[in-house]
């Protein structure tokens, strides 16, 4: 990677004048430029570029590019997985939700967490034993390569695309507020850094960016939660009773409220969160970075512990913000506060609750730290997404479908780097196009597609002898299509994004996973059972050999030597 150095430096040089220019820009909805945050963020960028430089020298083969050569330890991978999951959306979004509605915020975080046990028991070890770089390796193990790879690549790319748009738009808005940078600049910086990390450092750099960010975020969130508890003499009673007193909903914040009013909606959302986790391509890919099934298992254990701990922290942070932010005029918009009360008057909206709390408990320096960590969080998550999307293009579509498995390894890596650059440019463009759109539904949609297309095909390919290529293809596409169509017909898109009248949405629930997953499973089952083709016999006969390898790991790819 001789090209790395000049390109990396050029990119950095490009950043500096942008930051300085932003500092001089004035007015608008932006905040004053936050120098503490910028200095700390630039420090993070230098550190991670240094790691990318180191990783580039160890990223020469396809195995190293896609899976860091299987050389990541269980503990490291667990921290990285937790990093993939602790996105800016879950840190700022859930603490903001707790700030606005109290107990309801907990409901979301629990849903995000409970997917992990399911991944441990059903997916993690078979994935490691059967696959190499992408989950399509597993799904297509005994099925027709071309059809299954195309299906898996579609499922991966659509999931990645929606997730990526949501992250890019969120990044632009957040950075605009935190750093005082223009929206488009923030999106461009995120896109360029993501391209550099992934094309030069592959999975190794992406993993370490994720680990560093996870450690920074967990430390910062721990400090905030401790500071809140310290403020109340480590008495939960004092914290909660103060929150109940100052919050306009009073005692109602201590019990479930209106957020989950419809049980069908709640169950459907829960299914999307749980089974979507087990179908997200950038998460599944992480299981190929460890040496064996035992390390895969350990990584989920570490990740579950860290994510659970993190959600307990966000709950305390949300309540801390009710007591320390909503009571401090410095963080509130005086006009709105006079008209509608202090809680909703929070500057920048409820997603800023954790950020203002950082200022309240740790002053300007800590505010800068948390802002920089929030930026770093977005960078790390989009890098993982880009790598997963690029692998679907190069490993599944190019190497297997187009070149029929005959692709030269260097050519395959070249394709994945080109794909990363294209995805980066596309992400920047989409981020700018969707600036003023309501993209809140997109993360839910990504989870729903993962749960309705990727997960059923993956699960049944591992455990059901009767699955055939045709059944997987038709059922998977039905799941994908029904998820997308029902989301478009749901209130979030039909009413809030397209703008039809309230109550006119043809599909009444926010999340269709309950229905689209049922369609996918029934479709896969039906079209497999009635499949009498020659291919179907091959598919079914391949099950026993696959199952032995799945259970014992005999024949599985092992860690490559460095």
């Amino acid at each position, binding site marked *: 990677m001789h090209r790395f150095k000049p390109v990396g430096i050029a990119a950095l040089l490009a950043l500096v004048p942008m930051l300085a220019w932003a500092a001089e820009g004035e007015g608008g909805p932006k905040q004053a430029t936050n120098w503490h945050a910028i200095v700390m963020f630039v420090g993070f960028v230098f550190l991670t570029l240094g790691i990318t430089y180191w990783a580039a020298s160890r990223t020469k083969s396809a195995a190293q590019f896609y899976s860091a050569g299987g050389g990541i330890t269980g503990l490291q991978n667990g921290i990285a997985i937790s990093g993939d999951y602790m996105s800016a959306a879950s840190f700022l979004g859930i603490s903001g939700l707790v700030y606005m509605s109290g107990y309801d915020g907990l409901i979301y975080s629990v849903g995000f*967490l409970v997917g992990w046990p399911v991944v441990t028991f059903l997916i993690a070890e078979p994935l490691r034993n059967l696959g190499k770089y992408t989950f399509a390796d597993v799904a297509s193990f005994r099925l027709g390569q071309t059809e299954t790879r195309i299906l898996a690549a579609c499922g991966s790319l659509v999931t990645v695309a929606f997730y990526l748009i949501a992250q890019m738009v969120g990044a632009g808005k957040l950075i605009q507020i935190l750093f005082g940078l223009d929206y488009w600049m923030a999106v461009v910086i995120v896109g360029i850094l993501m391209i550099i990390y992934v094309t030069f450092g592959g999975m190794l750099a992406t993993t370490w960016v994720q680990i560093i960010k996870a450690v920074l975020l967990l430390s910062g969130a721990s400090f905030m939660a401790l500071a809140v508890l310290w403020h109340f003499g480590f008495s939960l009673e004092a914290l909660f009773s103060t929150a*109940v007193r100052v919050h306009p909903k009073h*005692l109602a914040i201590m*019990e*479930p409220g209106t957020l989950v009013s419809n049980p069908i909606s709640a169950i459907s959302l829960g299914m999307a969160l749980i089974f979507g986790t087990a179908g997200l391509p950038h998460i599944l890919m992480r299981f190929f970075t460890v040496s064996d099934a035992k390390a895969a298992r350990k990584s989920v254990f570490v990740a579950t512990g860290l994510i659970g701990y993190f959600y307990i922290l966000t709950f305390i942070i949300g309540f801390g913000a009710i007591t320390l932010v909503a009571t401090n005029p410095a963080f509130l918009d005086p006009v709105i506060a006079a008209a509608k009360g202090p809680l909703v008057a929070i500057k920048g909206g409820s997603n800023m609750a954790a950020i203002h709390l950082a200022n309240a408990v740790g002053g300007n320096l800590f505010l800068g730290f948390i802002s920089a960590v929030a930026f770093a969080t977005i960078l790390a998550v989009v890098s993982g997404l880009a790598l997963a999307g690029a692998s679907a293009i190069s490993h599944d579509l190019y190497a297997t479908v187009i070149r029929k498995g005959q692709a030269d390894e260097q050519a395959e890596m070249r394709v994945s780097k080109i794909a990363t650059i294209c995805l980066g440019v596309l992400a920047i463009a989409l981020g700018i196009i969707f600036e003023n759109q309501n993209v809140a539904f997109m993360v839910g949609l990504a989870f729903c597609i993962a749960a309705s297309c990727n997960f059923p095909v993956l699960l049944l390919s591992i455990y059901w002898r009767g699955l055939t290529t045709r059944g997987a293809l038709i059922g998977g596409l039905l799941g994908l299509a029904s998820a997308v169509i029902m989301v478009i017909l749901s209130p979030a898109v039909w009413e809030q994004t397209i703008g039809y009248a309230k109550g006119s949405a043809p599909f009444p629930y926010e999340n269709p996973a309950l229905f689209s997953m049922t369609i996918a499973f029934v479709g896969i089952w039906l079209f497999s059972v009635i499949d009498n083709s020659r291919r179907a016999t091959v598919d079914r006969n391949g099950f026993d050999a696959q199952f*032995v390898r799945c259970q*014992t790991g005999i*024949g599985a790819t092992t860690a490559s030597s460095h």
Partner: protein
Amino acid sequence: MAGQSYQAIQRNPKYQELVRTRSSFGWTLTAVTLVIYFGFILLIGYAPKFLGIPMGNSVMTIGLPIGLFVIVSAFVVVGIYVTRANSTYDRLTREIVEESR
């Protein structure tokens, strides 16, 4: 594949034991997780006031320890599985792999 064919491994009683115990344990724990989670969701959907019952004279409600229990239970069931897999399943797998050579 060097060594035994997969048919020979399938006939190994240790392999049969591994598959039987691990699948039933894995699916049981999956069911436990889903019952805890969807039980919580149904409680929220149909009996939100139940979660709002205060604990003694405190403003804290029983919804708090129940929510905490759901979070901790996710970690605990994963821990139970990992402990058992590290001892029993890994030993069986190692023996099967060695006998297949």
